[in-house]
């Protein structure tokens, strides 16, 4: 109930448009009923051979309804879809505002892809909440009530029969069919997703499966699953068949029942024979109003589920935290990480234990260690995307959790492999680094990121569309655009998370030299698994299993004969 209320609340700003579209919906179905009703009236009256003048009104009526129906339908669809799109944008805006304002831990989880796909799906489902649920129900209720009452004026039994037939067809039958099919549909969905993951697994592993000669056996196992799923689908289509049959039966039985009651009335003379003909056709036509209800019931179900999930995800308690008030031009003179402990979740391997170091302007600290050792989570902790379980990060002498996260982040530029580019023009992507930058500055950073040649070949220059998440660019180009964007930011601290790892050796060298030269006055945290350039940093932290195993300058580590020197040997072993 609560979800329904919340969903309806989203419709509130559009109440007039909704009324209009409902009215148009009623007019559409009303025209259908009117067309058949006046036609029956016309023909039945004509059979009594009156003068042509007596038929004029009904002839005009038939012609009017014949034309109006399609027009009303067209307008109704336009208005209702416009409402739909407005509802969708409102939902999106609301959701974005909620997510943007909430602590970002969840967005950083590994399942973020799943989450987003679900959100997009849910939003799309809710988009139809109005057109497929609210509107058809209101229209059906109004039209059914109207036609039944009209007949009820002549004889209460006629109205009752019609309203019963409409209600059974529009409410009882859909509910019954949903109750029966729901468990089957759920099973079907499970089987389908199972089938799909098995198929993907088989395709991706085809090379291995073929080399081991087990590909046929594997495919056979999937096909068996597929046939199993098909048997469930057959059951669903049988149920659907029963539903269609029953629905057709109900319509016609209602009409026959109407006649059964109406015929004696004609004999008694309490209604005319003309009315009998009119009732028959109106009764038939009125069933169009409930035709959309089974679909509405299915959609209502889906909408409620989608709405519930979305509201759970989006609605949060507002945490009115007060932050330290800071001067406009505040920049911390150092960043100190003190005794930091962090564990993402029990299942994940990586964790950080007792990490301490201090980053000052003009110093470079390198963090090395195998991938998955928790190096990247350190960056998320510094940027206040996550909160440590123990220990803290200090900006000057202030605990960073007491500073507005926006202010914290405004001190750091980040270059990482996972930096996202957006589906927009090159200019828009770069300007995210600094919305005030002019073309001269943009060119400058492209040059520094070794993108000058590439840029000169772009036919549309800065307006070039770089595709979904920048996928039209090669991995290296994407990386370098992200570097250029970070260069535009001009922040006092620089976080480098494997910044050049997927570039070719020559470019790697050029960019690293540029970065180190350009930012020699800044504080740099340099995360890498490549041991080049370590001679340029002030301190190396070797991270293994979440703890700092060894630390010191390159010389100290090389001479200590510890794990670091073993790793050097390993790297020298590589032919790549």
């Amino acid at each position, binding site marked *: 109930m609560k979800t329904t209320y919340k969903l309806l609340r989203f419709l509130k700003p559009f109440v007039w448009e909704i009324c209009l579209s409902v009215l148009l919906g009623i007019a559409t179905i009303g025209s*259908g009923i009117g*067309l058949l009703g006046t*036609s029956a009236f016309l*023909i039945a009256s004509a059979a009594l051979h*009156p003068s042509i003048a007596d038929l004029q009104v009904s002839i005009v009526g038939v012609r009017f*309804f*014949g*034309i109006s*129906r*399609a027009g009303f*339908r*067209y307008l109704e*669809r*336009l208005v209702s879809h*416009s409402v739909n*799109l407005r509802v969708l*944008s409102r939902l*999106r*805006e609301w959701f*974005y*505002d909620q*997510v*943007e304002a909430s602590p970002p831990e969840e967005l*950083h989880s590994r399942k973020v892809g799943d989450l987003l796909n679900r959100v997009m799906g849910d939003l799309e489902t809710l988009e139809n909440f109005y057109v497929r649920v609210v509107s058809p129900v209101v229209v059906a209720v109004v039209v059914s009530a109207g036609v039944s009452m009209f007949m009820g004026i002549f004889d209460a039994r006629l109205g009752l029969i019609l309203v019963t037939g409409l209600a059974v067809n529009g409410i009882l039958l859909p509910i019954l069919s949903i109750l029966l099919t729901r468990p089957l549909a759920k099973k079907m969905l499970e089987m389908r997703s199972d*089938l799909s993951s098995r*198929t993907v*697994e088989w*395709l991706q592993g085809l*090379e291995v499966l*073929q*080399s*081991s000669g087990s590909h046929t056996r594997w*495919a056979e196992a999937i096909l068996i699953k597929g046939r199993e799923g098909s048997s469930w689908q*057959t059951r669903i*289509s*049988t149920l*659907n*068949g029963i539903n*269609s049959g*029953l629905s*057709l*039966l109900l319509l*016609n*039985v209602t009409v*026959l029942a109407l*006649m059964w009651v109406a*015929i*004696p009335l*004609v004999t008694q003379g309490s209604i005319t024979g*003309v009315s*009998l*003909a009119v009732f028959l056709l109106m009764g038939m036509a009125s069933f169009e109003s409930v035709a959309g209800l089974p679909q509405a019931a299915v959609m209502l179900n889906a909408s409620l589920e989608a709405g519930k999930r979305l509201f759970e995800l989006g609605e949060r308690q507002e945490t009115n935290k007060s932050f330290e008030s800071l001067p406009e031009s505040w920049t911390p003179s150092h960043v100190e990480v003190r005794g930091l402990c962090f564990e993402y979740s029990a*299942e994940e391997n990586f964790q950080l234990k007792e990490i301490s170091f201090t980053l000052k302007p003009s110093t470079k600290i390198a963090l090395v260690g195998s991938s998955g050792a928790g190096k990247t989570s350190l960056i998320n902790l510094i940027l206040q995307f996550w909160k440590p379980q123990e220990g803290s990060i200090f900006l000057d002498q202030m605990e960073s959790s007491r500073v507005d996260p926006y202010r914290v982040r405004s001190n750091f530029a*980040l270059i990482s492999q996972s930096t996202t*580019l957006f589906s927009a023009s090159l200019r828009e992507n770069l300007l995210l680094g600094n919305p005030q930058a002019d073309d001269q500055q943009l060119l400058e950073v492209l040059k520094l990121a070794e993108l000058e040649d590439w840029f000169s070949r772009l036919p549309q220059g800065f307006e070039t569309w770089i595709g979904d998440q920048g996928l039209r660019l090669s991995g290296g180009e994407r990386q370098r655009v992200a570097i250029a964007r970070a260069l535009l930011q001009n922040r006092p601290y620089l976080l480098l998370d494997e910044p050049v790892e997927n570039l070719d*050796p020559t470019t790697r060298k050029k960019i690293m030299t540029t970065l180190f030269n350009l930012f020699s006055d800044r504080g740099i945290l340099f995360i890498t698994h*490549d041991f080049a350039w370590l001679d340029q940093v002030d301190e190396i932290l070797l991270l293994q299993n979440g703890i700092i195993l060894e630390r010191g300058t390159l010389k100290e580590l090389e001479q200590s004969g510890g794990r670091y020197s073993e790793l050097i040997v390993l*790297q*020298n072993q590589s032919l*790549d």
Partner: protein
Amino acid sequence: MNNNARLIQKARSTGILFPLIVLFGFLAGGLVVLQSWLLSEVISKVFLAKQTLAQVLSLLQIALLVVLARSIFTFINETLAGKLAVKIKDSLREELFAKINRLGPSFLKGEKTGELTTTALQGLDALDAFFSQYLPQILLAALLPVTILVVVFPMDVLTGIVFVITAPLIPLFMILIGKLSQNHTQRQWIGLSRLGAYFLDTLQGLSTLMQLGQSKARGDRIRQVSERYREVTMNVFKITFLSAFVLEMIATISTALVAVEIGLRLLYGNMEFQQAFFILLIAPEFYLPLRNLSVRYHAGMNGLSAASRIFHLLDTPEVGTTISFIEKETITLEDKFTIDFQKVSYHYPENPETAIDFIDLQLESGRHYALVGESGAGKSTLALLMLRFITPETGRILLNGEDIQTWNLDQWRSMIAWVPQKANLFNTSLLENVRLDDPRFSEEAVHLSLEQAGLSDFVKNLPDGLETPLLESGIRLSGGEAQRVVLARAFLKNAPIVVMDEPTAHLDIDLERAFIEASERLQKGRTTLTIAHRLATVRGADQIFVINRGRLVEEGTHAELIALKGGYLNLLESARRMS
């Protein structure tokens, strides 16, 4: 044969099912004529002949029976159509899977996997809708109006003419407007899909936006973009909805025309009331199948485009798969043999450059061979040729002087253990993952091979031992452990030849050591061809092949090649310089 014809042939191949669907659909629809006639009789008798309920009761009872029969036939028709769709889907899936198995992994190279998955899953589902909804409807749309015409024409020629003229307008306009709106939509589509993607894009990049300090500004942009999206979409809708508008218009105006025309003739006594009323009842039914068709037109078009993708795949020529059923004597670990590459060339269909260019090389039993070269030089192509995932375009690969293509494929592969660079594990138990080649291997044998791969401790710590599912149970294998599971597979297979693509160096010393030890154990006594990524591997190899741009440029031992001061030395030096 075009896709339409092929699909219909598919439907007919299901035997009696398809004719039954048509029959019951036709009966369910055709009985409308009888029902309308009965109702018009009843009305006419009560209205004009002043008969009572008792006098028309038998007619009403017959009408009830007709109605009941229609409902049952509708039920049978839909159920059978569902059955037909499922049957065809199952058989097409089978064909598709068998085809993919025959085409093999070289066909799947590149980005085709995603596309293929879509075809195999959503494509088949789209065909489902085609067979269960569109096909029966298109038949009804052809049959029912004709039946009604046959009844109406002798009764009233004028109405018949109105029907004949207006009916074809529906499909005609459907196609015309469909084309128009398609053009219109396609022009707007790029913009639309970009705008539509904007929101997802923003959510996906939210943390980047936050880091850049732009997340609040982005909220305003979303508002603007949503508004533009709405405007553009509405412009598209204005056109697309036209098609429904016109269809509706034709159907309702025609009904109105017929009603007025018969009403007037009735007035002047040129027609019987019962006939006129019958025509009025039947008129909406005449247009109904055509209108339903337009509702399902979309399902039909989707199905057709899915069909074209599926048939295209099924028609892909299978190159070089000469199937040999001749069982030869399998080579075992004890046998002496030589494998000869004689002037072997190959190039990938999507890439004009030659991947392997006239390569001559020889492998002798019991020796270790290493392949080195820059990425893209053709090392993996050689491995794929060896495994017969691809077939040489020129030249031959000979085993003891006999072309390997003459071997039965499964038997040939049973003699080679393939260790790819990236460990490929499947969503099943550890046991089944290891005995992938043959599920008849005993658990003891599997245990032994895991031990040889250095995984005994790993197995001991698993909650359900060998039965532990590998990917779902939350057990996270490290990269090195996964690779050793693949080695265990190779130990179990105990093939005389090992083709290995070495993993690139990790930064975890312990994992590295365990893998190297296990792979050395595996190589002992076998003939191995390794795509080398490690200095130790090339040092230990009896022979190194240096590949550059598909050509064999140098061969020899490590020491010999160093002394040559050629490509090999360059390769080593550039690797060093990078680290």
